């Protein structure tokens, strides 16, 4: 069986002889980056852009937390605070979370994982980055020149008739970013359908690919609806067409319906790619095939499907039909099933695995715990009667941050660490990475767990005055956010240093399976010397070739690990 992985041996041989032309040093001019059609370079451009927006959104978050330290709202005016949390939400949702994993890690890794030379439409991919950048700059401009105070949800008729901020500019920015996301989605769908290497059947695909396929389907089917909805709000600010204005006979609930038709599935746009990463990392960290591969693959599609049928649970208390609300509540409970399938299968994969606690694995374990908490508190909110008490409180804020930070960002960090050697060709400092992972985990929980309590006690979201009784929980939350902030700074430092001082990475530093590890690190512009032919299943860790790992970790089960590493080898 060792011949199955022949390409891996070839790649490592090529690595040792080092002709060393890769996508990073192929060309050096600014134009070669800004006009590149190489998915790897576009992914790097995206990585830089989303990091920029993450910093801005993060600064806004810190300011919100600073403001809430005191119950009297000393730092900002009411209006300023409204604009602040709107800016945080809009930037984090539309300009960080939605494109974060697909446009960076997905963009880089998908063609490598399926043995393709590029995405199906390289020019569309570049266009996507430009649309994203233009949208992002317009949003920033709008926020600097007055800001918006509508919250990221743009609820009508406040946003369409009454708000005085730069609502139209912000809506245009989100609209444009939506098209950038659609371009990425179309590209992934076609690429995954048509560009797979010979022999790479659907059920040999890594789960990362399944997750991105499901994500792309959501993007393509959901984004146009929110785009037209937001466009109608912008139009309504100029011409009183009244679709969302009750004064004219229009219906604000119609806006909420169409907004959440996208924006609920958008949660899955954020978290599904993250789940794909977790599958890769867990398999590598446990050195096992993912338990119940087919179930995990189909659960991605099930989440994408069910995710479109639950939007009404955001509107339980805003006046939608109670009978429809009952249906939405029921389906919201159902959507927990495929999510739980994933969690159980990852846990089962870890069970009796040869566990290596590398930094990506730490993030992955963090993901499982935090996503479970986020998901289960979602069930509280999906219960009609409990939601009456908890809606619009900090409980909701805590719940979706557990899903978006604990889910999406932990997955993003896991993936970034896991593929950093592939992307940059350098190894980062593993010790600092583990320390940072621990700090982020602690900081995150200290920030958001108190918010569950606050919400249960009844503190509403989006207010900066609150009764002094709540201060102690708010101070805990703010303290946690400072720790979280430090936790995010540390990776910025060691990743930055690794670019210059990091050890050179071998093609396969994690001793992982998957086509992306069979080409050089960083990969050549054309990805593979020859298009690989796949004859093995995904996560085939039992027949792993004997390739030296760059990172020699002590394993939790010493003997077993060594046996596992070398079982398929020819030493």
């Amino acid at each position, binding site marked *: 069986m060792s011949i199955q992985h022949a390409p891996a041996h070839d790649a490592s041989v090529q690595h040792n002889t080092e002709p060393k032309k890769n996508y990073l040093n192929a060309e050096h001019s600014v134009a070669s980056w800004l006009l590149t059609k190489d998915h790897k370079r576009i992914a790097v451009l995206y990585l830089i852009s989303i990091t920029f927006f993450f910093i801005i959104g993060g600064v806004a978050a810190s300011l919100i937390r600073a403001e809430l330290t005191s119950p009297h709202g000393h730092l900002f005016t009411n209006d300023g605070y409204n604009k602040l949390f709107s800016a945080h939400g809009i930037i984090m949702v539309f300009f960080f979370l939605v494109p974060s994993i697909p446009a960076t890690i997905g963009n880089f890794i998908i*063609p490598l994982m399926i043995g*393709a*030379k*590029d*995405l*199906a*439409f*390289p020019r*569309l991919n570049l266009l996507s980055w430009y649309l994203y950048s233009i949208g992002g700059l317009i949003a920033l401009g709008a926020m600097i020149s007055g800001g918006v105070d509508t919250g990221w949800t743009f609820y009508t008729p406040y946003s369409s008739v009454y708000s005085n901020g730069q609502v139209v500019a912000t809506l245009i920015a989100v609209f444009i970013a939506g098209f950038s996301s*659609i371009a990425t*989605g*179309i*590209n992934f*769908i*076609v690429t995954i*359908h*048509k*560009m797979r290497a*010979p*022999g790479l059947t659907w059920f040999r695909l890594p789960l990362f690919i399944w997750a991105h396929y499901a994500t792309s389907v959501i993007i*393509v*089917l*959901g*984004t*146009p*609806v929110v*785009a*037209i*909805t937001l466009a*109608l709000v912008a*139009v309504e600010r100029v*011409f*009183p*067409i*009244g*679709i969302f204005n009750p*004064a*004219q*006979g*229009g*219906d604000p609930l*119609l806006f909420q319906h*169409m907004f959440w038709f996208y924006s609920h599935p958008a949660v899955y746009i954020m978290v599904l790619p993250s789940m794909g990463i977790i599958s890769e990392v867990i398999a590598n960290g446990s050195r096992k095939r993912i338990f119940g591969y087919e179930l995990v693959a189909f659960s991605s599609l099930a989440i994408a499907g069910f995710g479109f049928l639950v939007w009404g649970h955001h509107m339980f208390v805003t006046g939608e039909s109670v009978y429809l609300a009952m249906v939405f509540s029921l389906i919201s409970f159902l959507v927990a099933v495929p999510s739980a399938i994933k969690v159980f299968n990852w846990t089962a994969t870890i069970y009796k695995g040869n566990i290596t606690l590398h930094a990506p694995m730490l993030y992955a374990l963090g993901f499982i715990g935090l996503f479970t908490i986020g998901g289960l508190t979602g069930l509280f909110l999906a219960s009609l009667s409990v939601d009456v008490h908890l809606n619009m409180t900090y409980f909701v804020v805590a719940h979706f941050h557990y899903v978006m930070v604990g889910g999406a960002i932990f997955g993003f960090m896991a993936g970034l660490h896991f593929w950093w050697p592939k992307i940059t060709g350098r190894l980062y400092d593993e010790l600092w990475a583990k320390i940072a992972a621990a700090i982020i985990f602690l900081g995150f929980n200290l920030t958001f767990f108190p918010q569950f309590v606050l919400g249960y006690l009844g503190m509403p979201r989006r207010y900066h005055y609150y009764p002094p009784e709540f201060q102690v929980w708010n101070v805990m939350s703010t303290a946690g956010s400072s720790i979280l902030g430090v936790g995010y700074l540390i990776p910025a430092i060691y990743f930055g240093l690794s670019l210059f001082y990091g050890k050179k990475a071998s093609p396969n530093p994690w001793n992982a399976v998957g086509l992306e590890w069979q080409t050089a690190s960083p990969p050549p512009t*054309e990805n593979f010397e*020859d*298009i690989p*032919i796949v*004859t093995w299943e995904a996560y085939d860790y039992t027949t792993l070739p004997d390739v030296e790992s760059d990172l020699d970790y002590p394993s939790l089960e010493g003997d077993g690990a060594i046996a596992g590493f070398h079982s398929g080898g020819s030493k």
Partner: protein
Amino acid sequence: MSLEAAHNTNIAVHEHEEHLAHQFMNRAQQDESYIVGMWSFLVTEILFFGALFLCYSIFRIQYPMAYQEGHEELSWQLGCLNTLILLTSSLTMVLAVHAAQVNKRILAAGWLVVTCFLAAGFLVVKLAFEWYPKYLHHLIPGVHFHWPHEGFSEVAPGKAELFFGLYFAMTGLHGIHVVIGIGIMGVLAIMLLLNHKSTQYYMPIELAGLYWHFVDIVWIFLFPLFYLIGKR
């Protein structure tokens, strides 16, 4: 080992085929990628317009009289003329695609130009004979909106404004798509006449055709929904 053989033939085909982008292995793969890519874009367009059709339906059920009286301001004759123009332009578009498929370059360019002219004719009817009179009658939503522009109506001005808002939003968005279509087809016609490398391959014209037929389909629904609202 048969895979190995298949792989080798792919490489061989790759080296010999023209008009093959570097990321594809062969023309069949490339062609289907383009078609599926275009269709998944059209899926976004279907949902984009579909959401508007949904708004239309919800308010039509709630305010039938506003739709009934509003639609009497529209001319079914002009709507019918425009439907005829767009259906014909769809025919000329498929003839352009057909000409490109059978390698008749100049004929393809000719049909594209005809399609462009028909599309422009649609816009002239739409803007000069439909939208402009609405402007004169103060039927554009805004401070100058005046309802009814003559006679007496039981329909509140706000609801009439809603009807005309939907009318302008939907036909306007459709009109934007027509303008984009004219741009695409015009550029393709010029490239064909110059025998540009990209249009030596029929696929760009086929994709433009898919887009243009979609624009036609939207109008097929807009016409009965706005111009032919049954009398009560």
